[in-house]
């Protein structure tokens, strides 16, 4: 299990920039404004910024933690090393469950958007089937191909969807931004709590860390990537604040998609169809990386070949999508993912770091005594 990876499977450290960004931005980008502005109103952008800064700290913490893992391994080998085979295994299974939940939520929430906006009558299973088949095709190409998909999933949407946001400036009401700091710290902190979920996704780093060539040097790219994510969320929230007023936004589920209706060109209307279509490229890396992480945990934990486990995992996800199609189910799954993700990143990882740090200290002092 401790085998180090052959160099040709590794990726350059700067690709972390694309992977982290691709996994952070997902379906949430289309509709994160409403809960945020319910809490913090025009000060929602502060919540975006604060949550982003907190993410920086957590990324830093994760790199510190992973530096402790034996022979540059991932979190599964770290668990095993510090908690023994059984308890460490249980912790890793918890992680597996989280990744499964994340993959499932991503898949379902995007399919819901497709259903609501584009194909209300078409069976959702068709989309999940294609998604999952493509997922298998990517993952069977190895992590390099997964990283490649993340690359395209960042570059193409940035080049095509992002410029469309500028059309909203035509109708901007800049006075919507005022008064600044009109909300209490508790309100803003509540919004930060809502927002933190949108930054989740970088925790898959716990699994793909051994696949990075010269992994510690990739930390600056992870931070740079987070800066880009903060920037994108900030731009979107600011445009939403100046475009919508508070009453309007309470009635819109996906404000970003509604923003995409603004552009008018002579030969095409309803740009949101294009946005939703291209959004496949944004959502797809989220799903693929999560499923990849699942297969990787299974391989590390039970030594099952990924070629065997992957079809089973994908079939489970597919069967899952058949049963939970209701909006309320999806809402519940989003809640669970959000809560467990925040717990994992905000509570578990810091605690684990403290534990590992103390253990190492104790070990060192014992060695010195001898």
């Amino acid at each position, binding site marked *: 299990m401790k085998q180090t990876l052959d160099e040709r499977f590794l990726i350059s450290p700067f*690709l972390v920039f694309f992977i982290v960004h691709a996994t952070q931005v997902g379906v949430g980008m289309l509709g994160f404004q409403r809960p945020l502005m319910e809490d913090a109103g025009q000060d929602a952008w502060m919540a975006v910024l604060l949550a982003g800064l907190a993410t920086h700290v957590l990324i830093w913490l994760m790199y510190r933690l992973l530096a402790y893992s034996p022979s540059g391994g991932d979190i599964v080998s770290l668990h095993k090393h510090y908690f023994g085979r059984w308890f460490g295994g249980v912790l890793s299974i918890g992680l597996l469950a989280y990744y499964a939940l994340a993959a499932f939520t991503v898949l379902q929430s995007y399919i819901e958007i497709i259903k609501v906006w584009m194909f209300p009558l078409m069976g959702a299973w068709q989309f999940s089937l294609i998604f999952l088949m493509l997922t298998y095709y990517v993952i069977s190409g190895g992590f390099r191909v997964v990283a490649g998909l993340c690359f395209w999933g960042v570059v193409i949407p940035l080049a095509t969807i992002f410029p469309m946001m500028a059309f909203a400036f035509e109708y901007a009401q800049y006075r919507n931004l005022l008064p600044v700091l009109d909300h209490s710290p508790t309100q803003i902190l509540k919004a930060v709590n809502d927002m933190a979920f949108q930054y989740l996704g970088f925790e898959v780093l716990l699994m793909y860390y051994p696949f990075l060539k010269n992994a510690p040097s990739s930390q600056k790219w992870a931070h740079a990537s987070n800066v880009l994510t903060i920037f994108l969320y900030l731009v979107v929230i600011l445009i939403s604040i100046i475009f919508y007023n508070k009453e309007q936004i309470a009635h819109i589920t996906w404000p970003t998609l509604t923003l995409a209706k603004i552009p008018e060109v002579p030969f095409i209307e309803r740009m949101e169809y294009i946005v939703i279509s291209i959004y496949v490229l944004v959502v797809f890396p989220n799903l693929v990386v999560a499923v990849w992480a699942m297969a990787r945990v299974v391989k590390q934990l039970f030594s099952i070949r990924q070629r065997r486990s992957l079809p089973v995992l994908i079939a489970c996800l597919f069967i899952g999508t058949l049963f939970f199609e209701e909006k309320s189910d999806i809402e519940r799954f989003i809640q669970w993912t959000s809560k467990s993700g925040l717990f994992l990143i905000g509570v578990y990882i810091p605690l684990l770091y403290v534990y590992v740090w103390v253990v190492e200290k104790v070990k060192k002092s014992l060695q010195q005594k001898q």
Partner: protein
Amino acid sequence: MSFLSFFKKKKRPSQLTMPQLWEKLRRSSDFVEVSFVVGRKELSVYYFDSLVDPKVLQENILCHLQNDLSRRPDVQLENLQQIVPIQRIEVSEDAAAIEEKVLKGFVVVSFREQPGKAALISAANENLGLRENNDTENEFSVVGPKVGFVENIGTNLHLLRRQIVTPNLVFREMMIGSVSKTKVVIAYIDGVANPETIRTMTQRIEAIDFDVVFDNAIIDQIIADNSKTPFPLFLSTERIDRAVYALVSGQVAVFCDGSPYAIIGPSTFFDFFTSPEDYSLPWVLGSFFRLIRFFGVMFSILASPVYIAVLTYHYEMIPEDLLGPIIYSRSNVPFPPVLEVLFLEITIELLREAGARLPTKVAQTLGIVGGIVIGQATVDAGLASTILLIVVALAALASFTTPIFKMSNSIRFIRFPFILFAACWGGIGIAFAVCGLLIHLGRLQSLGYPYLVPFYPLRVRNFRDTFVRSPYSMTAERPTFFRPQSRFRYDPENAKQKRDIDE
């Protein structure tokens, strides 16, 4: 000729001796060395097989050396002219000069009794390689040379060596095919191409077990990294300038006797969209036409799927002003958009296939009959809409802008999956297909090098010659993704020198 200056750069610091020179030249399998004894004289003859006219060599040089030398034992290298009836004979002691001459098709004669000296007799076959018609017909360019490779491997090697005048150009010969025993030559520039690449290519070709090798295309398919892909993994070209450019960039070329094409590997996806003409035009124009070509490819792949997606599922996307013409042209059409598109696409495929199989003169007539008569009649009969006719015809036109035939075929092929996806799932289907295509391309490798480089893995430094054909002052560096052994094609400092205003 700027790209040959890596040779100029290392202006040979130490003097080369003659044995060293022969040793150096012997690496190439077309270098021939003949030694024999006539009377009391031991003599050696050296030449490049691919450059020398065998008739001249036999009738004018070897014949006289063998017959007349025994009768006139006093003949030295200096007065060789007395027995050899060739106009240009020079005697030289300078190994560098000899090297240059021998690479231009001179025959070197040396006597054992006069070491360190050699006579250079011109026997270059200037006319070799100019068959009746060796125009580049399939990779035509308006500017630039029009001489292409022919079916004779000797000619091809000759053409290559005439442009790359350095002993570092190495030809490695092998026999492939249990029945045909075809001569296959791997060409590379020593000191530029990565040894790893050369080794992989050699190994793969040596491992071929096949009966008759008709064409390079067969070798191409057998040595490809992935046989299930519609995309060509090796560039095949009939243009000399393209092959030379590839060799100078650190790629390896494979020639096969009986094939007018050279295959070049490792290749990247973007190699297939560059045309030698880009390099003949000023860089602004070259880049512009290259961008047009990329746009053409995207248009060709996406035009008819988008038509299907919009007209089948997303008719809300059509603006009011455009709705009138579309309704007007489609109101008589009884089919759903998919069938309409497939009907026209297949018609165009048929025309293309028929045009390619027929003699040139008939094909032209067929093009007119097919293009105008069938197209017009289809619309009149109400089988397809005028707008679609325009879209499909434009898409077909756009797919022909790809300079490499194999790639243009692949592009025509991958439209059909896109059409099916668009017909099933509209815009989302197209996005799925794009995803699938990107993943597929991301998985491909050519000789173990990633196919999508410099995009993925991203190599920002190598973007100078992808979408934009940068000016020559910026392209001194070789693309690093082939891991060439020497970094620069020519001195970047010289190329970059800029004078101040009014100086």
